[in-house]
């Protein structure tokens, strides 16, 4: 019963974040970038400025609303890249086996050996800050789990009757992988993907803190939080709202991931790290 609460609360939080991102132009009061008016700098929250204003006089509410776009783009796209890489490598490795499997295994071990945040940091250092770099950095560094799961299920599914039947029927490898194997491993992969999105949003914040985040002027929650950290004692609203946005979204994704796991992948509850 509790499991369903996970799913509902998590799904609601995530859906809310998505909705806010999609409807940003209608929800926001002002343009998050161009409407800087230094005359209104650092107003505390009020009826006019729901979340207050920042040191450039920009409406924090509007920036948080628009920030959903950037932060969710980072979370969703980078995790999508991870999932695609992980599934493509894991599925093909498990299905074909042989030297390709060895190569994928070596790659996976390599990825597991380098802490992903450090890897992302290195990539960001090379590419320079910015949204594209961030998507690449976070999208290339967190696929090993997906890959392992995909490989394991491909291995076990390969020997199943219906897959062999498909082989006998003369289906191509690609078709078998896409139609027979992929649908059967989607559950755990969606779960990992959901949780991965949450950690990508957090990684974005961490990289922003290290000075390697999204390129302004477009706001991301991570960069807003990072910029506001100096004023935590004097203008706390600067950091409270983006901080809350990150917290609630990632919380939602984590709860959603847990809930999905209970539904889609009940037997692996304890196996995940």
């Amino acid at each position, binding site marked *: 019963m509790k499991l369903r609460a996970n799913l509902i609360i998590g799904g609601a939080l995530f859906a809310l974040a998505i909705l806010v991102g999609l409807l940003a132009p209608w929800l926001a009061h002002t343009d998050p970038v161009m409407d*800087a008016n230094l005359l209104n700098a650092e107003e505390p929250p009020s009826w006019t400025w729901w979340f207050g204003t920042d040191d450039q006089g920009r409406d924090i509410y509007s920036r948080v609303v628009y920030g959903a776009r950037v932060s969710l783009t980072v979370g969703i796209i980078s995790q999508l890249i991870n999932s695609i890489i992980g599934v493509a490598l894991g599925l093909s490795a498990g299905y074909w086996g042989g030297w390709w499997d060895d190569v994928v295994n070596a790659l996976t071990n390599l990825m597991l050996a380098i802490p992903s945040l450090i890897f992302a940091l290195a990539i960001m250092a090379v590419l320079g800050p910015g949204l594209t770099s961030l998507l690449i950095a976070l999208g290339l560094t967190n696929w090993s789990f997906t890959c392992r799961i995909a490989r394991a299920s491909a291995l076990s599914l390969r020997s199943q009757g219906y897959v062999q039947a498909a082989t006998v029927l003369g289906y191509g490898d690609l078709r078998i992988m896409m139609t027979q194997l992929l649908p059967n491993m989607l559950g755990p992969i969606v779960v990992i993907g959901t949780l991965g999105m949450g950690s990508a949003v957090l990684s974005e914040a961490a990289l922003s803190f290290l000075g390697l985040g999204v*390129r302004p002027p477009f706001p991301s929650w991570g960069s807003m939080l990072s910029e506001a950290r100096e004023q935590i004692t004097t203008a706390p609203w600067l950091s409270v709202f983006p901080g809350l946005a990150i917290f609630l979204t990632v919380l939602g994704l984590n709860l959603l991931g847990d809930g999905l796991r209970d539904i889609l992948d009940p037997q692996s509850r304890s196996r995940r790290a």
Partner: protein
Amino acid sequence: MMFRMFAIVAGLGLALAATAEAQTPRKGGTIRMTAPYGSSFTSLDIHTTQRAQDEIYAKALHRSLYIWNSAEGKPVLELAKEVTVSGGGLVHTFKLRDDAYFHNGRKMTADDIIWSYNRIMDGTKAYPGARFVRVIEGAAAVEKGQAKEISGLKKIDDFTLEMKLTEKVDPGFYFFTALTSIYPADEGAKESFIQKPIGLGPFKFVEHVPGSRIVLERWDRFYKPGKPYADKIIVSIMGEAAARDVAFRNKEIDTSVLGPAQYVAYQADADLKGTIVEVAEVFTRYMGMNPAFKPFADKRVRQAINYAIDTDLIISKLVKGKAYRATSWLPLTAPAYDKAMKPYAYDPAKAKQLLTEAGYPSGFEFEWTTSQNESWGLPIVSAVIPMLDKVGIKAKVKQVETAVLAEVVRSGDYQAFIYSQASGPDPQAALKCFHSSTPQPACNYTNFKNADFDKLVDEAGQADDPAKRVQLLQKANALLYEEAPVWFFNYNKAVMAVQPWLKGIQLNATELTHQNVEDLWVDETSPAK
């Protein structure tokens, strides 16, 4: 030379200095300073690093031939008692101190200075101090490997040194930073030196926890009688401003450099207001424009940009008043600063008109390279963008790291950039950066070329009369204003918070964190043992 009071002192700073004067310095105690520029010291070999961060500890550990005197606003002799100039202003003969002891107990002689300068000119090592020592005749030959020793340095006796320069400059401006610190000739060559450096400064090295702190203790044989006062100095590395803020409020550190946001917060806080110390530093913040980018080749466009930006508003609101409005290149503290000059007014209509005259009635788009720096980087750019937008100019941000920005600026690989550049303490050297003979990578970052300007600067360099020189430099500075190779943004106002028990803080316009620590002392209210 004509001097002007260097430090533009806030009333509070003066008051603090005044009380310090009135009390008798207490002996003993621990001074806890912070190194705010990054999360480590670069090196214990101060010759290898030019970061302001490293000079903070070097001020305690090392000494150079000259030292910056904040009260007088110029470098003064430190390791020499007197200097005589001859040979048409090129030959300087120093009478050295005979009471300066290295921390291993050995007395300093002229050999140590010669050895140190020769070391700095080792071309295989590319020590950053080479650009200062290069002013001595024969130094460049050593750097290129054509000579073993600098021919322009001559030891007359143990305590007399003759130095022949290549041009007529004041050597004080060249030999006062820690980059030209004097090492003990014998010890400095050893491998162990970098682990346990030895210097001539008022404090000797105790330990360095990389990334954390340097601890130094009083050197009893320091040459200034009765000094230093404190028993110990701890320089903690604290790059994170938020953490520094908490630590300062928590009384864990004695000094903290304040950014704009904290500057405002501290001013608003009755308990902290009294801790603020501020000074105009010799740094000019500006947006450099690349003349190779077509719109910026036109003077009117560059002027239009200066008109289009409400610089005062940015300084008061965004920089929180933690800066002085720039009129032209030379900072307020420069002897050649012309008080009569007025900065560009905020006049979007005029900007629009100039743009139309220049052939850009509907504006244009350019790429603006910036770092994340809060005082002269991204936040400023973000505030300027909407202002430029109002006159039709679209700026696209390209954010890079500070190190990359430095590279970009030197290579000229930009359309526009925002930067902070030293514009002192030597006004002559500062303006020389815009001389057409100065290559872009050296410091002529906007690749400025103007024959009239060259002439003014050259004449100033030849002038023997200080007043005449100032006048010429003022003219050159005014010409820069008119040509507007950059958007003149501001001169930095360095702000430091200093705990009430730490006395003797000097208002150093070259870098506020660089304190002659032998003059600092803590009273008994300090919580540190």
